[in-house]
């Protein structure tokens, strides 16, 4: 019987749901609250109401410069990560390459590898071979850590699609290139879109790799926020964070319009 859930279990479930909601949403509420504070200091509940910190942020060269770098990096990362991850997923899904299983594990390994170790290694390797870090270094670093998401979402979509579609297209006269563009890629599209969304968000949000690969003039937004918080904390940090939250929510809404969040989340 599905309906027969005992009372203690139901209470426990409710507590769990409430706790999850609380710990998920409460920090956001605090951040948004602090951002509209009038005070010089980070305090919650806010001291008075004002938008001065938003004005501060939007006229600050260091914030805007960092945001511009983060935005450019995130765009580049989305592009390369979706291309590489998508191609890898298609290849893995066919199981014709020797060791497809090992390949899948390899492409997903950045998920389990501690990012800090990867970041240190990347810094040492780059310095040894190419010298000083550039925006390309961060681009590559972020691409590596976001590829697993694209591979996963694309594989999920592919594994649910009819394995005979490509053969069917072949019997209808479609050559190799036509099959790729007219059959395989359209199949992957929801997965690629989901993966691209993850890649953009993760890159835009990423702090560890960016922190190790920073230098003057090459500071991403999360690193800028971290620096601000460490050396001269004020509610501008909260204001930036609130803007980032708003952008993310906006992005989700756009994707919902285009693809539907249900379908998107299920991949």
């Amino acid at each position, binding site marked *: 019987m599905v309906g027969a859930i005992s009372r203690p279990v139901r209470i426990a479930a409710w507590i769990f749901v409430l706790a999850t909601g609380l710990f998920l949403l409460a920090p956001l509420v605090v951040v948004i609250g602090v951002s509209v504070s009038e005070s010089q200091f980070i305090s919650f509940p806010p001291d008075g109401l004002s938008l001065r910190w938003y004005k501060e942020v939007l006229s600050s060269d260091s914030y805007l410069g960092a945001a511009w770098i983060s935005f450019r990096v995130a765009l580049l990362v989305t592009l390369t990560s979706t291309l590489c991850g998508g191609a890898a997923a298609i290849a893995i899904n066919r199981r014709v390459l020797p060791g497809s299983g090992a390949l899948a594990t390899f492409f997903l390994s950045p998920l389990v590898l501690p990012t800090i170790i990867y970041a240190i290694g990347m810094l040492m390797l780059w310095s040894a071979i190419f010298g000083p870090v550039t925006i390309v270094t961060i681009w590559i670093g972020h691409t590596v850590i976001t590829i697993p998401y694209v591979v996963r979402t694309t594989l999920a979509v592919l594994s649910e*699609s*009819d394995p*005979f*579609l490509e*053969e*069917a*297209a*072949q*019997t*209808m*006269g*479609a*050559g190799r290139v*036509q099959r790729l563009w*007219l*059959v395989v890629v*359209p*199949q992957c*599209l929801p997965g690629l879109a989901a993966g691209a969304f993850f890649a953009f968000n993760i890159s835009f949000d990423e702090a560890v790799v960016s922190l190790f690969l920073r230098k003057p003039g090459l500071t991403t937004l999360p690193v800028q926020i971290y620096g601000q918080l460490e050396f001269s904390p004020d509610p501008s940090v909260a204001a930036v964070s609130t803007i980032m939250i708003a952008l993310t929510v906006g992005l989700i809404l756009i994707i919902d319009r285009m693809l539907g969040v249900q379908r998107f989340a299920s991949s």
Partner: protein
Amino acid sequence: MADVRLHQIKKSFGSVEVLHGISLDIASGEFISLLGASGCGKTTLLRIVAGLEGATEGRVELGGQDVTGLPPEKRDIAMMFQSYALLPHLSVAENVRFPLRMRRIGTKAEQRERVADALETVQLGHLAERKISQLSGGQQQRIALARAIVSKPKVLLLDEPLSNLDARLREDMQVELIEIHRRLGLTTIFVTHDQEEALSLSDRIVLLNKGKVEQEGAPDEIYSSPATPFASSFLGASNLLPATVRRVGGTAIAELEDGQTVALPADTAEGACTLALRQEDITLSGEGDANLTAEVATRVYLGARSRYILRLAGQDLRVLTGTTPTHEVGSKVGLVFDADRIRILPPETEKTSKDT
């Protein structure tokens, strides 16, 4: 339209040979069924004709042209898959147009016309703008058929296309397939494990068993004169009884393993053989002038009829009868049949599966 010639096709997967040299001539416009149990190689053979699978040995000719080395996209074929394989991101009309687009057949206007024609043929013209996900299974099946016939291919290949439909839809589609074939006259190869489908649709049936052609012929011929115990049991649920034929005076007598005897036509050859008797040719009687006596093992009530499983000389016999009179499990019953309906086949070399 074109004829298809398969010459000594062999196929191995690794060290396992699944097709042992199959040769087949299919006339232009013929509807041929490859019939067999799962694993007999029928789908593999179809995929070799399509070019999706390469033959290890042998030659495939379409319309007189050797296409053995050509990939599917270079062969003038169309194939319908068991899963239908409709492209989910395209509309119904775009799916049906796909082969025309890929093979660059006609102008855009002509393509539209042919798509409309094909959809009309399967009576789904009104669904042209639908998405695939909005269609029922039966509708998807018809769209797949429309897509397969739209390019008027030299050969139409059908891989168990009706197996995912429920019984009523399947019967409708069988009728429709017959009509479409009559109208378009496409050379058609139809793969199925369902003997009824094969019997009702085909001009000719090729019965495959373990990668070899067991028997081929017109449906009535292959049904009424199965050449082997396998063919006999696969087509029409025949009961097979091992027996030994002896001549006594002017008559031939078959002796079963339990000592019961049956009179056979006088010209029957002596020696070991298999008697094949269809379940619909047997009636049951309580006692008396029966040809043979057996014991009732199981009775299955089917509504309009009853099916009995009888035990005779160590073999299970299936008999389909009316629901009255009822014979109790464990009781003895007499089997009544016309001795002319018995087919005498070579002795069984190994146990063949009785698939019905």
